[in-house]
């Protein structure tokens, strides 16, 4: 399987995609190239045939703990990668390496959202996000706790679906009034039915088994108007994985999202009632078109008190997700203060009334 590299035409150093400038840059001679220039210079890389499935011949000598070994074309060192890695770095010369076989045939992405948020910006987003959290331990925000930071193109399945959805419910109008010593309650019941055809575009589910699904669900949305046709050049300077969870396996997650969305849409069309109780709801998926896309995510792993905490920053929008540790001391102090203030306010009210 071929491993290709994007090397600076001026000095031979590794070219990386610079998210903040949306250009390709060389950290050695500081040259910069536009996307168009890179596509022309690396015409050979861009024209690699990715339509065919590549069978990985893993022989005993290049198999390594479930991963594979490749030869770096820059320094000749051996590069270790796990079975899903599509883009990585040579640990010796730090040049970016793209493993084309992991991006070919069934694994060839249609689309890609390039990184917009660069590394330092992602750290800044994390720090300011943590500052807003009142109840995290003070020591957690320090740089020393940052164990690992990775810019990774995560494999995502994006489903365009047409659904037919149907809901039956009982809607109640309730009116109350007083007359004499009695309170009257008038209830008017209606049989409510809704039937609709709904189109959903780009419902995402990640295709990487090692990444926490809830973390990726929280990281949405990505702005699909910025989706580009896949080009390997965007991967240079970042890590990328191929999917190991296929369309069929992510379908239950997509269905769950569609059910939630359809129910929500139908419920919001039922208005003017005091209460609505749903008796029947069906949501049938009539047609699905798939896109296999690589979406940009910054992963940060923090170590605190012997426990690892994982965070992710949407590499396009900068949205931060993840669960930091909770400082029980701070929460207890806050609740105690709240308790004291409320008690004092009631006491003061009682004093003023007396």
């Amino acid at each position, binding site marked *: 399987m071929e491993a290709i590299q994007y090397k600076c035409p001026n000095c031979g150093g590794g070219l990386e995609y610079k998210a903040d400038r949306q250009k390709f840059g060389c950290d050695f001679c500081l040259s910069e190239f536009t996307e168009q220039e890179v596509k022309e210079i690396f015409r050979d890389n861009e024209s690699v045939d990715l339509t065919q499935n590549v069978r990985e011949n893993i022989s005993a000598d290049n198999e390594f703990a479930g991963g594979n070994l490749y030869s770096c074309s820059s320094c000749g060192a051996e590069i270790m990668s796990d079975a899903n890695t599509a883009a990585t770095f040579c640990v010796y010369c730090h040049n970016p390496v793209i493993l084309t076989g992991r991006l070919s045939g069934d694994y060839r992405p249609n689309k890609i959202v390039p990184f917009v948020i660069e590394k330092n910006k992602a750290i800044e987003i994390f720090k300011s996000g943590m500052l807003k959290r009142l*109840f995290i331990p003070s020591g957690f925000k320090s740089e020393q706790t940052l164990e690992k930071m990775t810019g990774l193109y995560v494999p995502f399945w994006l489903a365009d679906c047409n659904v037919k959805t149907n809901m039956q419910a*009982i*809607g109640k109008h309730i009116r109350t009034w*007083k007359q004499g*010593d*009695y*309170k*009257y*309650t*008038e*209830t*008017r*019941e*209606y*049989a409510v*039915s*809704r*039937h*609709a*055809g*709904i*189109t*959903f*575009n*780009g*419902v995402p589910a990640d295709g990487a088994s090692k990444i926490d699904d*809830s973390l990726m*669900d*929280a990281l*949405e*949305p990505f702005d699909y108007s910025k989706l580009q046709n896949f080009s390997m050049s965007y991967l240079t300077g970042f890590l990328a994985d191929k999917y190991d969870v296929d369309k069929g396996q992510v379908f239950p997650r997509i269905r769950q*999202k569609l059910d*939630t*969305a359809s129910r*929500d*849409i139908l419920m919001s*069309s039922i208005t003017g009632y005091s209460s609505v109780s749903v008796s029947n709801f069906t949501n049938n998926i009539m047609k699905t078109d798939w896109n296999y896309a690589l979406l940009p995510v910054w992963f940060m792993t923090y170590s605190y008190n012997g426990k690892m905490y994982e965070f992710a920053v949407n590499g396009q929008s900068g949205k931060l*997700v*993840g*669960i*930091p540790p*909770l400082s029980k001391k701070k*929460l*207890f102090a*806050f*609740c105690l203060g*709240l*308790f*004291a*203030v*409320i*008690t*004092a*306010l*009631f*006491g003061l*009210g*009682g004093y003023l*009334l*007396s």
Partner: protein
Amino acid sequence: MKYIKKTLILFFMALFVFSGVSEVKAYDAACKLYDAADVFTADEEKSINKKIGRYADDLDINIAVVVADDKDKGSREYADLYYEKLFGINTDGILLFIDVSKDRLHWISTSGSQIKVYKSYIDPMFDDMTSSLRVNDYSDTVDIFLNDLKSYPKKTIFKSLLIGALAGAVVSIITAVSVTLKYKKNEKYSPRNYEAKDKTNFTEKNDNFLREYTTKTRIESSSGNGTHRSSGGGTHGGGGRRI
């Protein structure tokens, strides 16, 4: 020099006299016992007047105790009008009317800010005075009444603190639980945002009337010491008990 000395002496004497007057007459002179039925001895009356004055001063309100055996109107009206005659309408104070006529409907009339203060304590105050009133020990009755005037508002503060502590505990627990839950789960993005809104097509939207029914429940009447207006025009609170 002699003139200055005289002036200074006069100034300090005036200061002493006026400060003395203001100390003694901090409360309204009308704050006292009105014993039309002659149930108290002169010594008792003197002692009670002194106590009423001190309590009126401490609490900064008008206080009077009226004892009568020939009321020409109902106890409530009698007490309300007596208060207004002594202190004017809607001033801040309280009056205890001890009815020693055959009717024996004793009454507490409150006015101004004191309507709210003693609203919940009229019944407990009568509970405290009942045993003394039953044996016609009016001196003890007045003592209990005056002591209750001081102790019950303190109980209001205690009660408010207790309610505040309960409310504070509930709010604190809810805050602690909701914060802890927020530190356990990532918030999900609503999948509804992937809807192509211009392509959504409702093929059925029916709301058909099924049935109508009406239920009625009796309203529990609240029994409290509400306010009322006297024929003199003032607003009063309070309540009474026949003992």
